[in-house]
């Protein structure tokens, strides 16, 4: 058992790097993920092979799946958000705010959750580093993110106003908790589920989605519609792209060790 535990600790930094690098969405973090120095050295996973049976045999691979999300057709005009009813919200936004449901620039779709739906062989020990879901300016940051089952989710309120966090997962127990002032609460989801929706009833425009997976192979498309899922073991995978407004699309991809494959998805206005 002790060997088992040490193996998990070995895997943790790897998982964290992936989560931190690509789990938070946005173009910049994905650039970071693409930098070689942001990834653990290739040799490190070898130590995992010495661990007992529970250790993932195909974990910590060297392939990567990259891609672009295109958007065709007329882009819906984002809804303006009226925050003046709560001055605490309004104060943090000097310029008018619009809904972050659909974000398209130059025909490229931001905030799609892309993950390996089928083909991943685990298990992958969840990182102990939390994923953070922040409420700031009556806005969820990040709007879309991913987490591993069992990994802590730190929900923070950075506002001097009352938020309720109303999460309605299906596979995991739902909750609806109050954060009336700056504070943090930690939650975990034990079962995989794409996606868990978070809502604030006090500020009805606030919505966030969290993809809960049993592995670290997911990303969120950035401003340029691109994503990178790194450290993928060789194999054949079903890649799914999920968007809150436009549904899901899947593709099958086969990668070998060290290989980088590119996939493209095109979502359409509905």
């Amino acid at each position, binding site marked *: 058992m002790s060997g088992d535990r040490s193996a998990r600790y070995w895997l943790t930094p790897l998982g964290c790097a992936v989560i931190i690098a690509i789990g938070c969405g946005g173009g910049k973090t994905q650039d970071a993920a693409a930098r070689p120095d942001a990834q653990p050295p290739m040799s490190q996973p070898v130590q995992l092979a010495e661990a007992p049976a529970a250790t993932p045999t195909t974990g910590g691979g060297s392939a990567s799946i990259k891609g672009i999300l295109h958007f065709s057709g007329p882009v819906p005009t984002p809804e303006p958000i009226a925050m003046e009813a709560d001055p605490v919200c309004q104060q943090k936004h000097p310029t008018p705010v619009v809904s972050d449901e659909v974000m398209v620039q130059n025909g490229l779709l931001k905030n799609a959750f892309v993950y390996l739906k089928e083909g991943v062989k685990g298990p992958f020990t969840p990182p102990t580093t939390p994923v953070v879901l922040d409420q700031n300016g009556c806005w969820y940051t990040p709007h879309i993110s991913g987490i591993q089952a069992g990994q802590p989710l730190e929900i923070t309120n950075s506002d001097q106003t009352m938020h309720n966090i109303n999460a309605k997962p299906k596979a995991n127990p739902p909750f609806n*908790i109050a954060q009336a002032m700056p*504070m943090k609460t930690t939650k975990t989801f034990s079962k995989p589920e794409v996606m868990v929706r978070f809502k604030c*009833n006090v500020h009805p425009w606030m919505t966030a989605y969290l993809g809960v997976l049993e592995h670290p192979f997911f990303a969120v498309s950035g401003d340029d519609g691109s994503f990178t899922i790194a450290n993928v073991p060789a194999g054949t995978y079903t890649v799914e792209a999920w968007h809150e407004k436009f549904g899901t699309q899947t593709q099958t991809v086969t990668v070998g060790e060290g290989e980088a494959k590119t996939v493209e998805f095109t979502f359409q206005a509905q």
Partner: protein
Amino acid sequence: MASVVHRTTLSILVTGALVLIGLVPDSRATPAANATHRPTPDPAAGQAAYQQSCARCHGMQGKGDGVDAKRFYPRPRDFTVGTYKFRTTTSGTPPSDDDLFATITNGLPGTNMPDWRQLSEETRWQLVDYLKSFAPQVFQQESTPVTLPVFSSNPKANTGRAAYDKYGCAACHGKQGRANGRSSATLVDDWGMPIRPANLTQGWAYRGGNSPTAIATRFLTGIDGTGMPSYVESGMTPEETWQLAYYVASLQEPAHWNMIVHAHRIDGELPTTVDDPRWQAAERTDVRLRNVVTPAGEWANPPTVRAATFQVVYNEEQLGLLVSWDDPSESRNESPDALAVILEPASVKGDVVTLQAWPYAGAPPLDLCYWSAPSSTAYEGIVSNYEQIQTRPPSAAELHNAARFDDGRWRLLLRRSLTPHTPQGAAALTADVLTPMAFAVWDGGNHQALAVSPWVDVALERARHPAHH
């Protein structure tokens, strides 16, 4: 064992002390379910009782889709989802069996769910087991009871005001608890339907009980399926929990469901303002308001005006009414808030038994004293439908009125003649008979939703002044 005995003794002593000082928590949070009476589950008996007593609203398959479901607000629970609002358990966990038993036994005040005490305890327990069978996946999970904090000191309601502000209660429930907080009109439930927060001044409509203990329980459990969160992880201290519970309880205003309304005799001029101190001498009566039946039903358009409070005064010539009602938004002009005092015209044959259906085919006309914001407008007419008075018929008589809107509450003064000459056929009030009276209230901020009261009978109080004998 010794420590258990000690704790029990202590709790009896503490409870006794609380009873003496009038602060005893009620049994709502710890329903008086006696496990020893619980029968062995008998699915056939449970199903039979369910179909007999529950299916009409909750549906044969427990989906909350009975024949009347669409007209109800709040809607009957869909048992197949397994989400229960009123529990003593942690947010997101199923209710305890005792919770279900308590809801069946006590009903849900302010809703169409009655209490089912006429069913035997055994039958109610069979129903508990049968309800659980609609959502086995939910009831496989463990339900973790919340623990009410120790009732540490003598909480004063006035110290709870700070907690009310600190924990953001006003965002939905409003500064004075009148369900007019800034988020009140945007709330949706887990089924995507619009809902409204509780009006905390209406203690009679607190679904889960209106005692401080029941209120504190709601803070801890939240109300699953709605926007009301659990405050377990919010940093709320035990002291604050009780202070806030007592503060919320203090917002409740006593309701007087009089069926006979005594009009208070005043010598000389009737009050001309809503603040006249003479109103204090007049008896207060509360009436429930229900939205009129529409094809869309109540549920599509949750009712916002649930009750009205009124007082009646009179002198030799005139009748005066002071009516107040909670409406979350002040609406004037285009789509105004409005109220009508409804009387039966003189010499009209036939009764309008329920105003919820009026005007139906062949319905008798009604005498309406109609006011709409802005407050300069008030007049009286005999009409066959509401549109006639809303567009002001030529025969209408001007009424004296004064109105004020303050933080989610209208207060309106209306004065009319006891025996008016116009409009022709207007209701006349005399000291010898009871006069049926009812109210219709329009909420301009809620798609002109119309809510009506049942009839109450107004009695002109005999003069007690020696001068009149």
